[in-house]
C-alpha cells in the first residue's frame, strides 16, 4: 500500500514530555476510512499519539504524514483543517457565557480564516452537525450547564461542523454514565459511516472500542504491542474478566 493510501502514517517517531520519553520508535498506519481503536492503560502515551497527529506535541525524530501532508511548519495548517479533535476533558466553568450552538460554530472558525464572517454555508454545516448528534434543541443553552453526555455530543458536533476527513477522539466516553456511553458509541459508528471518515479513538474503555472499532491496536509503554479485531479483543477481555 502506498503512503498516500494511509490517512495517518507515523514512521518511527520519538517524543518526550518534560524530558521523559513517551513514544519511542513508534509507528502506526491507518488506512483511509478505517475506524481504529488504540487501547492501553493510563500513561502509556495514547493522548500523546493524538496530539502528535494534530501537531500539538513536537516530534524529535521520525515522520508524521496526515492525508499525505507532512507534519511541518507549512503542512500543519492543512492538517488542522483536515482533522477534528475531541479532547479527553474540557474544564469549562458552568457560568462561562458560551452557548452550545456557539461551541459547535467554533468548529467552522479554523476553516473560515481570519477576517471572514459566518456565512450561510457555515451555518448549514453547524446545523447539520447539531441535527446529526441530536443536540439541536440544546443550541441556545449555556454549554457549561449541560450534562456530561450532552457536552460530549456537542463537542462531537463541533468536530463534525469542521467537515474533517479525520476524526481524532481522546477517551470520548470518559466520565460518562452507562447510557450516555452506549449512545456515544452508536453515534461514533453512525457518524463514521455517514461521513466516510477515518476515525482514531484512543481509550481504555473496552466496551467502547469493541463495540465501535474495525480494528484495535494494543499499546503499552509507548509501543504498539499487537492488533486485534473486535471479536478477538472482546474475547480476550472476557477471558481476563473471568480469570
Amino acid at each position, binding site marked *: 500500500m502506498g503512503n498516500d493510501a494511509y490517512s495517518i502514517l507515523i514512521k518511527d517517531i520519538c517524543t518526550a514530555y*518534560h524530558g521523559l520519553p513517551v513514544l519511542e520508535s513508534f509507528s502506526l498506519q491507518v488506512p483511509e476510512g478505517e475506524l481504529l481503536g488504540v*487501547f*492501553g*492503560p493510563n500513561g502509556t502515551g495514547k493522548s500523546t499519539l493524538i496530539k502528535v497527529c494534530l501537531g*500539538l506535541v513536537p516530534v524529535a525524530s521520525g515522520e508524521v504524514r496526515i492525508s499525505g501532508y507532512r507534519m511541518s511548519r507549512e503542512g500543519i*495548517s492543512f492538517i*488542522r*483543517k483536515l*482533522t*477534528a*479533535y475531541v*479532547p479527553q476533558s*474540557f474544564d*469549562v466553568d*458552568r*457560568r*462561562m*457565557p*458560551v*452557548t452550545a450552538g*456557539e461551541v459547535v460554530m*467554533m*468548529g467552522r*472558525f*479554523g*476553516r*473560515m480564516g*481570519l*477576517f471572514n464572517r*459566518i456565512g450561510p454555508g457555515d451555518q448549514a454545516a453547524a446545523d447539520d452537525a447539531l441535527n446529526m448528534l*441530536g443536540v439541536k*434543541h*440544546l443550541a441556545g*443553552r*449555556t454549554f457549561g*450547564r449541560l*450534562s*456530561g*453526555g*450532552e457536552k460530549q455530543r456537542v463537542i462531537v458536533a*463541533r468536530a463534525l461542523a*469542521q467537515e474533517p476527513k479525520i476524526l481524532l477522539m481522546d477517551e470520548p466516553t470518559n466520565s460518562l454514565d*452507562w*447510557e*450516555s456511553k*452506549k449512545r456515544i458509541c452508536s453515534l461514533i459508528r453512525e457518524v463514521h459511516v455517514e461521513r466516510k471518515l477515518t476515525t482514531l479513538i484512543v481509550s*481504555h474503555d*473496552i*466496551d467502547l472500542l469493541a463495540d465501535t472499532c474495525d480494528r484495535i491496536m*494494543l499499546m*503499552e509503554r509507548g509501543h504498539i*504491542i*499487537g492488533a486485534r479485531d473486535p471479536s478477538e479483543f*472482546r474475547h*480476550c*477481555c*472476557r477471558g*481476563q*474478566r473471568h*480469570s
Partner: protein
Amino acid sequence: MTVLELLQDDFMRHAILATFLAGVTCSCVGVLVVTMRISFIGVCMSHAAFAGALLGIILGLNPTVVALIFTLLAAAALGPLADRGNFSPDTSLGIIFSSTLGIAFLLLSLVPGPKTEALGLLWGNVLTVGKIDIIILAAVALAIIVLLRLFFKEVQTVVFNREMALASGIPATAVFYGILICSGLTTVASLNAIGGLLVFSLIINPAAAAYQIASDLRSMFFISALFGVLSGWGGLWLSYLLNLPSGALIILCSTLLFFGAVAFSSKKRSWPAKAVSDEPRSEICQGGKLNPEAGLQGKPENDSRQPCSKSALMEE
C-alpha cells in the same frame, strides 16, 4: 451639585472623559482576563508597568514609554512561563509577581527627592490627567475595540478552550500573546488616571460582575464596559462630593457593582440542566419509571461492570 456645574471645570471634563475611556478599556480587557482565568498574569503586568514607570522617573525619561517597554517585556516573559514552564503556572507567576513588586518598591526607594510623582503612579489621580493621557487612553481603547471586532471569533474560540482552538487551526498562541499585550497597554494607559496598584481592580471587577449576568461573550463585553464606566463616573462623583481619593472610590464602586451582580445573578440561582430535560425519554427510563427489561436488552452481551486487568490483556 449638578452635572452641568461639574462640566464647567476643565479638569473635571478631562476626568469624566478619562474615567469613561479607562472604564471601557479596562473592562474589555477584563472580560478576556476573567474568562481565560489569567487574573494573576494581569496583576504581574500592572506591577511591571508600575516598576517601569518608576525607572522612567529615576532615569529622567518619559514614565509612560518606559512602563510600556517593561510591560511588553513582562508579556514576553510571562507567556512562555504560563505555557511551558517547568513549574506550575501558579508558582511561575507567583515568582514573577513578587519579583516585579520587589523591583517596584526598590525603585520607589531610589526615586530622588519628594516621591509625590512616584506615589501618584501607585494610587493615580484622575483629576490631574492631561490631554496627552486622554489621547493615549483613547488610542488604546480604539485599538482594543477594533482588534476585538476584527478577531472576535478567534478570541471566542481561544477563551473557550485554547488547545481545541489550536487544534482546529486558530492561531491560538498569537491570540493569547495579543491578549497579554492588550492587558499591558491598558495598564500603562491607565497608570496616571487609576494608578498601578488599583488599575487591576478596574480590569477584574466589572468583568467579574458581567460574568455573573451575561449569557454570551458579546453581551459580556457590553455589560462589563457599562459597569466599568458606571464605576468610573460613580467613583469620580463621590470623590468630588466627599473630597476623597478618586482611584480608591472608583475601585470601591466597581466592587459594589460586583457584589450587586452576584446577589442578583440568575446563574447563581439556577441548577445545572438535567441530562434528559428537553429530549424524548430513553428506553431505559419511560414515563418516569425505570424499565429494567429495556436496560437489560440494551446492555451488551459481554458487558460485565467489573474492572479488568489491562496489563494482563496486553500479554500475547
